[in-house]
Structure formats: structure tokens, C-alpha cells
């Protein structure tokens, strides 16, 4: 299993290199002179503009720029922001943790809503519970995350005054709750459908029939026999959802004025701050790939067949 893990991890390296090349090349085309962004609204003199251009290494060829960027990447250096002059690594180190806290909480909320809802919809198939959850899920899937964010803000913060409108505040849980719930709810809409279909399939299996014939309590059958075997597709989707969460984090963090990496990326795109755009996108893609790897690993832990069959052949 560990060998498999390392192989997979190793394989992500060329993929990430490809992502870097692609981003680097595409972002070369950004119109306008990045050096100008250093001066804000002022028009710089010829000489000072040249100085900044040299400092940002813009006078070198694309190839040289790329190799030196890669060299820096290997040392963990992501360059400096064109706009603030701050090392990109430090910006990411500062803004990533709040984003991750939000994402983690969103996944928890997603699971807490989607798994019970999906299980219930499977057990109560073709009843009003099933139909109700279908309609809610269909609407949420079609809803842009920023719209749900604005509606929550309007309702829970502005009208009811239950929750803060946005921002990190003192960093306490209550500030995390609304943005995480918004992201978690939308992800839960997809997941509840997958949970339901996975459960329906498993409930139809021979071993669930056998467990019923054994007279085991209904709850035991649903949770220990059915749900346990329905986890693999559920978890696979949670992994894929991490990508969805990263995407929705940009709009969510913007709506809630959350000082995370998504929000920072939004600002960087507005400013065409190339090193920061590349650094942030690369970091988030790397996380995405890593999370999917982690999900594979957990799949192995849950499904003993995946885990053990890779370790050794078992005698029969």
C-alpha cells in the first residue's frame, strides 16, 4: 500500500510540472507591463521603470525566467509579488490557513448533512422525504455559491443579526460558520445524491438480504452492513469536492470578505500580479491533487481488499 502511495505521489510530480509550465506560459501573455503596477497611479521615469523591470527580471527571455522560477520552486521560493514586493510564499503562508479552516469545516458540514440525508432518502425511497430531498438538492446544485452566500448574509446577518456579516473578526467559530455552511451546503447537494444511489445499490445486495434474514436490527443493518460498504463512492466524491470547494472558496471568501488565499487570488487577478497568481494556483492545485491522493489512501483503509491485496497474496 505504501509503495502504491509513493508511486502515486511520484506520478503527481510530472503533472504538477506540467501545470507549472502551462500556467507560466499562459500568464506570459498578460497584457500591460507588470513593472508599472509597482507605481500605482504615478507615471514613473524611464530610468526607474527600467530598474524595476530589471529587478523583476522582466528583461530576460521567457526561457530564462522559467528556469529560474523552477529553480526557485525547488527551493520553495515562489518569487515576489509584483505589487507589494512581498515574497509570495509568505503571502500564501498567511492566507492559506484561514482558507483551509473554512474548507475543513465545510467538508464536515457537507458530510453531516449529506450522509444522513442520502441514507434517509435511500431508506425512504419514493416517499415524500425522497422527493423533498431531491428537489432541495436539485435547486442547490443549480445555485451559484455566491448567491447562497449573499442570501445567507441578507437573512442571518442583516435581517436576523444572528451571525456576523463577514470578515475573520476575532477568528472565532461564529465567523467561520456562515461561509463554511454556504460551501458545505452546496457540496452536500451533490453528495446526498451520490450517497443515496450508493446506498440503494448496497441495500440491494445479497449480504444485506442475509443480514435481514439473520434478524439483525434495522439500524445495525443500515449503518454496519449498508453504509459501511457505501463509503467508497461517497469518499471519492468528497475528494473531488475539494476542487469544487477551492473554486467556490474564491467567490465565497470574496462575498464574506474572508482573508484567505481565494480572496487574495481574486485581488491578485484584478492586479494582474503574475507571481502571486501562479503561486496561489499552483498551491491550490497541489492541495487538490494531494487530497485526492489522501482519499485513495482512506479508501484503502476502509475497503480491506484494496489495502491488503497490494501487500501480499493471501493463502486460500
Amino acid at each position, binding site marked *: 500500500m505504501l509503495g502504491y502511495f509513493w508511486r502515486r505521489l511520484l506520478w503527481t510530480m510530472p503533472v504538477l510540472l506540467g501545470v507549472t509550465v502551462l500556467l507560466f506560459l499562459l500568464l506570459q501573455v498578460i497584457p500591460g507591463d507588470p513593472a508599472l503596477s509597482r507605481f500605482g497611479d504615478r507615471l514613473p521615469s524611464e530610468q526607474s521603470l527600467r530598474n524595476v523591470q530589471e529587478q523583476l527580471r522582466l528583461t530576460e527571455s521567457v526561457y530564462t525566467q522559467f528556469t529560474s522560477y523552477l529553480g526557485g520552486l525547488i527551493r520553495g521560493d515562489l518569487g515576489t509579488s509584483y505589487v507589494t514586493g512581498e515574497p509570495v510564499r509568505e503571502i500564501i503562508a498567511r492566507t492559506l490557513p484561514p482558507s483551509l479552516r473554512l474548507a475543513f469545516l465545510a467538508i464536515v458540514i457537507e458530510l453531516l448533512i449529506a450522509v444522513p440525508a442520502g441514507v434517509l432518502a435511500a431508506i425512504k425511497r419514493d416517499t415524500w422525504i425522497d422527493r423533498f430531498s431531491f428537489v432541495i438538492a436539485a435547486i442547490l*446544485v*443549480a445555485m451559484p455559491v455566491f448567491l447562497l452566500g*449573499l442570501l445567507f448574509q441578507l437573512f442571518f446577518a442583516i435581517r436576523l443579526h444572528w451571525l456576523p456579516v463577514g470578515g475573520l473578526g476575532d477568528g472565532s467559530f461564529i465567523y467561520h460558520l456562515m461561509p463554511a455552511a454556504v460551501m458545505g451546503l452546496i457540496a452536500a447537494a451533490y453528495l446526498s445524491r451520490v450517497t443515496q444511489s450508493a446506498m440503494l445499490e448496497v441495500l440491494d445486495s445479497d449480504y444485506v438480504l442475509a443480514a435481514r434474514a439473520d434478524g439483525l436490527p434495522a439500524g445495525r443493518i443500515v449503518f454496519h452492513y449498508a453504509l459501511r460498504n457505501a463509503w467508497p463512492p461517497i469518499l471519492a466524491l468528497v475528494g473531488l469536492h475539494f476542487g469544487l470547494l477551492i473554486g467556490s472558496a474564491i467567490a465565497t471568501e470574496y462575498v464574506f470578505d474572508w482573508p484567505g488565499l481565494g480572496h487574495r487570488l481574486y485581488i491578485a*487577478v484584478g492586479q494582474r500580479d503574475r507571481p502571486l497568481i501562479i503561486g496561489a494556483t499552483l498551491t491550490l492545485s497541489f492541495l487538490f491533487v494531494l487530497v485526492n491522493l489522501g482519499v485513495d489512501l482512506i479508501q484503502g483503509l476502509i475497503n480491506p481488499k484494496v489495502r491488503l491485496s497490494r501487500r501480499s497474496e493471501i493463502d486460500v
Partner: protein
Amino acid sequence: MSNTLKLGILIIGLLILAAVLVGLFDGADPVAQDQQAFLEAPSADHWLGTDRLGRDILVRLLFAGRTSLTVSLTAVTAMVLIGLPLGLVAGYFGGWVDNVVSRLIDIFLAFPFILGAVALMAVFGPGLWNIFLVMALLGWPQIARLARAGVIDEVTKDYVAAVKVAGATPWYVMRRHVLPGISGPVIVFAVMGVGTVILAEATLSFLGFGMPAPQPSWGLMISDARLVYATAPWALIAPGVAIILACLGFNLIGEGLRDLLDIHE
């Protein structure tokens, strides 16, 4: 035909009809401002009210529908036109062609869709054409992967292998055996993809990277409404409902087609 499919077709049909018809009214101008009516609640004059610049929300809504439908339908068409041939060729011929295409797919799928779109819009700048380009550029790998898997599935079937051995040209095998087998999943995926692009366009425009103001776009309308939503919630609700309906409509059609064509994931 299932109720899901009928409802989806009804929603999208009405939406397209409205978006087409609104252009026939002389007075319907999405950027015209009524200086007498800023942020008015829905009334007989302005059925869905006006926004903070005195523009009629219903008219803007319908013109924005044109934007949204145009960009999503054309972008998905482009995704299929790029992804399908690449996937077919990779799956059919295998070898180094497959290697190159598959690695490219891996690389593109390593960025989450919206993240990639936001980063690329920094390069391309706002605009309808650029949204289309970015969506097509980021969306094709999914179709290609689907097509590739479908081809491999078909080509390994005995009867197809027999036809190949008998000297059929690749073109013949594709047309007669491969395409019929994979067209169902690709169609379903493409229809669902329209909904995804609608959401993505709305998100990009909302963030200010998509359609440039004052062009009509649902995302832009919501971004506008954000400034006044505490006092004029209708300005937020109307475009919000429009996005949900459009996306829901395509999703319902996709699901209906999946059941109709009996496709299992």
C-alpha cells in the same frame, strides 16, 4: 419521456423564447436608465423593479439570458469539438498519441475548474469572447476523458476487434461502432456541462472578470445588487432565480436523457 426531461425542456424552451422575443420589442434596452425610477420595487411599469441605475431588471434579465445561453452553448460545443476527436484518437490508436493526450488531460484536470478560469481570465481580460475561450480551453479534457474511456471500452469488444482485423478503416470503425456507443454519455455530459458553464460565467462576471459592465449578465446584476441588497432584495432575487432556473433546466434535461438513454456512470 420522463417528467424530469419534460420539465427541463419546458424551462429551457421558455427561457430561449423569452431571450429571443425580448429583442423584438423596440423599447427593450438593457442599458437604458429611467431617471425617474431608481431601485423601484416591482410595479406595472417595471415588472421586476429597477436597479440602482434605474434600469429595468426584467429587460436586463432577458438580455443577460442571451449572453448566458450564447456563451454556454457555444463553449460546450467547442469543448465537444476539441475533446471528442482527441479522446477518440487517443483511445483508438493508443501508444504515444494516447500518452500525450492522457498526460495533457491529467494536467488540465489538476486545476479545479473555477480556479483555472479565474486565473486565465487575468490573462484574457473580461469579455464574452474571452469567457468562451477560457471555458472551451478548460472544459475539453473532461469530454476527452469520457470519449477515450468509451472508445477503449468499445474497441476491446470482440466484434469490433474482428472488424478491425478484417481490414476496416479506423474511420469506418469509429463511425459504425465507436460513435454510436459513446454518443449517449457524451451528450448527457455536454448537456450537464451547459449548466456548469452558466454557473461559471455567472461566477466570473460576479467577481468582475467575466462580462464587462454595463453589459447584461446575471452575475454582473447580482454583483450590482450586492451594493443595495439590504433595501432592494428583488434586485438580487430576480437574477438569482434566473441562474438557478437555467442551470436546473439543463441539469434536468441531462438527467432525463441519462434515464432515457439508460446510461450508467
